[in-house]
């Protein structure tokens, strides 16, 4: 499948599937399919934004990539090698060094009983990037890199003494401490005040451009996806429905769901109410044997075949793909 292609692919995902067990009935295990047939490539020094509403499988995808969850099906390739082989050859620790994660909640991602110094020194010591003498200097350098001044005082503080934006910067510094190739940012700005969001986004953009780190940027907010990421993929209930270069996806959206997402972005200049133009359908619970397009119940342009089969990939423009029956 020729999905998001670019010269140097770091992490590649093909037809990834993840099922979660949801209790039992009639001695048969019920499964919920959180991620279905998802494929994308993550390129060096580029960001891929994954956009979608809550429960669309964005975070599950990222957690499979960090090996918190195991995938049910599909292939993950890291640096040209299948993930399992890479881990077997280089060890879990080496994969952990190369792929790091930033979490959504800056209040939950730092241990309240440890100082900032501990949080950043640990990854350095685990991955032997510093010893007892040099680690202090490295910690201060990292804190300054993410814009926390003065570094020495900040390192002595505890998480509760910092603001949300500062904590998220600490979380980024911790992810950077291992010198990763890929950072999976799981809604890094959605819990922050609007006023500090841009600062965090610009910091990540700097890291992407200057250090060549690849980002997978998970977000609700399609506007920041265009601002930060080169590529955007829109997900709905575990399915990728539209993807391609961020400009094309956000400027000329083809899939009805993407159009709905874009019309839901509030604009400062707009006044009065505006109808969203979608049916108030149910968001389906996806099971391995569910058929059709997940969006068909809410889609204003739904055809008869939409509830029968999930559409194939159609290329609508150069670097712009969509899965929809009614283009």
């Amino acid at each position, binding site marked *: 499948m020729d999905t998001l292609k670019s010269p140097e692919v770091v992490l590649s995902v093909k037809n990834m599937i993840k099922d979660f067990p949801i209790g039992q009935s009639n001695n048969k295990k019920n499964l919920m399919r959180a991620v279905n047939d998802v494929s994308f490539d993550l390129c060096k020094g580029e960001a891929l934004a994954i956009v979608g509403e809550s429960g669309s499988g964005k975070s599950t995808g990222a957690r499979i990539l960090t090996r918190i969850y195991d995938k049910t099906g599909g292939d993950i390739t890291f640096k040209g090698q299948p993930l399992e082989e890479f881990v077997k050859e280089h060890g879990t620790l080496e994969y952990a060094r190369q792929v790091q*994660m930033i979490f959504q909640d800056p209040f939950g991602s730092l*241990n309240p009983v440890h100082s900032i110094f501990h949080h950043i020194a640990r990854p350095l010591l685990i991955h032997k990037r510093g010893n007892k003498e040099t680690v202090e200097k490295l910690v201060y350098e990292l804190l300054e890199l993410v814009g926390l001044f003065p570094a*020495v005082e900040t390192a002595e503080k505890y998480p509760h003494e910092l603001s949300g934006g500062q904590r998220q910067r600490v979380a980024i510094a911790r992810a950077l401490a291992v010198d990763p190739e890929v950072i999976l940012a799981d809604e890094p700005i959605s819990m922050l005040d609007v006023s500090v969001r841009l600062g965090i986004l610009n910091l990540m953009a700097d890291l992407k451009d200057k250090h060549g780190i690849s980002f997978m940027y998970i977000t609700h907010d399609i506007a920041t996806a265009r601002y930060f990421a080169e590529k955007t993929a829109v997900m709905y209930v575990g399915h990728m429905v539209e993807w391609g270069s961020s400009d094309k996806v956000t400027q000329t959206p083809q899939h009805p769901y993407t159009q709905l997402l874009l019309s839901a972005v509030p604009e400062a200049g707009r006044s009065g109410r505006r109808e969203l133009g979608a049916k108030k359908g149910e968001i389906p619970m996806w099971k391995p044997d569910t058929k059709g397009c997940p969006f068909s119940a809410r889609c204003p342009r739904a055809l008869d075949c939409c509830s029968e089969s999930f559409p194939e990939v159609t290329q609508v423009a150069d670097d712009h793909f969509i899965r929809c029956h009614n283009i």
Partner: protein
Amino acid sequence: MNNSITSDANAPVPHHESEFRQKCRAAWMKTKAFFHGNPPAIIGGFLMTVILLGALFAPVLSTHNPDKRVARPHEAPSADHILGSTRNGRDVFSQVLQGARKTLSVALFAGIIATVIAVSVGVTSGYFGGKIDEWMNFATNVFLVFPQLPLLIVLAAFLGQVSSIVIAVLLGVTSWPWGARVIRSQTLAIRSKEFIISAEVMGESKVRIILVEILPNLISIVFGGFLGTVIYAMGAEAALGFLGLGDATEVSWGSMLYWAQVSSSLYTGAWWEMLVPAIALALTGGALALINMSIDQVSNPKLKTGPHLKLWKKLNKEANKRRGLV
């Protein structure tokens, strides 16, 4: 690097002060903050200090040898025998000091055993989950439904009149399930926090995650559970002693009660022989319970009493008056 920290002009502590003194100062400030506006801590801490000092300096403080006949039977409290004498002519004051050593060390030892088991079982099953959790939870439930005191009585009776070390071990291995449950549920809550997931993603080892990331978050609950177990173990030790299942030749608060009962001291009017060890037990239990309460207040600010609450109540009353609610 180090130099730049200490020579910083904004540093609150002058840099000529040595590191050790800084640490002492910080510890002192913390202690003061703990006791400030915390009456249970002050009362409990004071009582416990007195009791511990009494136990520690028992050989110096006791006026007579607690194991020797030093008076006539059932002598009332007097200047020579401050708390009177027993049926066998032992000095009650010296015995109660000596008994404090035995009873407290048994209770502490049992508390330590129970806490170690509770923490290891609770944290392991809470952190690893799955099959390990199922089995450990099963074991915990089995121990939890055993009626503890009858079990102890049967075990102690089966083993004959046993020494206090055996009693401490018995108490320790039967009183951990309650603490294990609390610690397990708390571990489950912390385990799903993102800082644990991020430590896992970072490649931190499981042992370090448990010891460095999870355990420090459990300190107050572990300590609270420890004190609760000590109170329980003290009561159970006294109960076993009172029933004559401990070693009656050792002086402990339990065996003192046993001898007081055997000599029917209350019927003969020698109330001091029965009341002194009973009050000692009650005071120690109360002091520990007060300390436990004060720790609860630190770990759970919602339970906080003291000046803040008093001020709030006062302001609330005034506000209600102004609104005409009273």
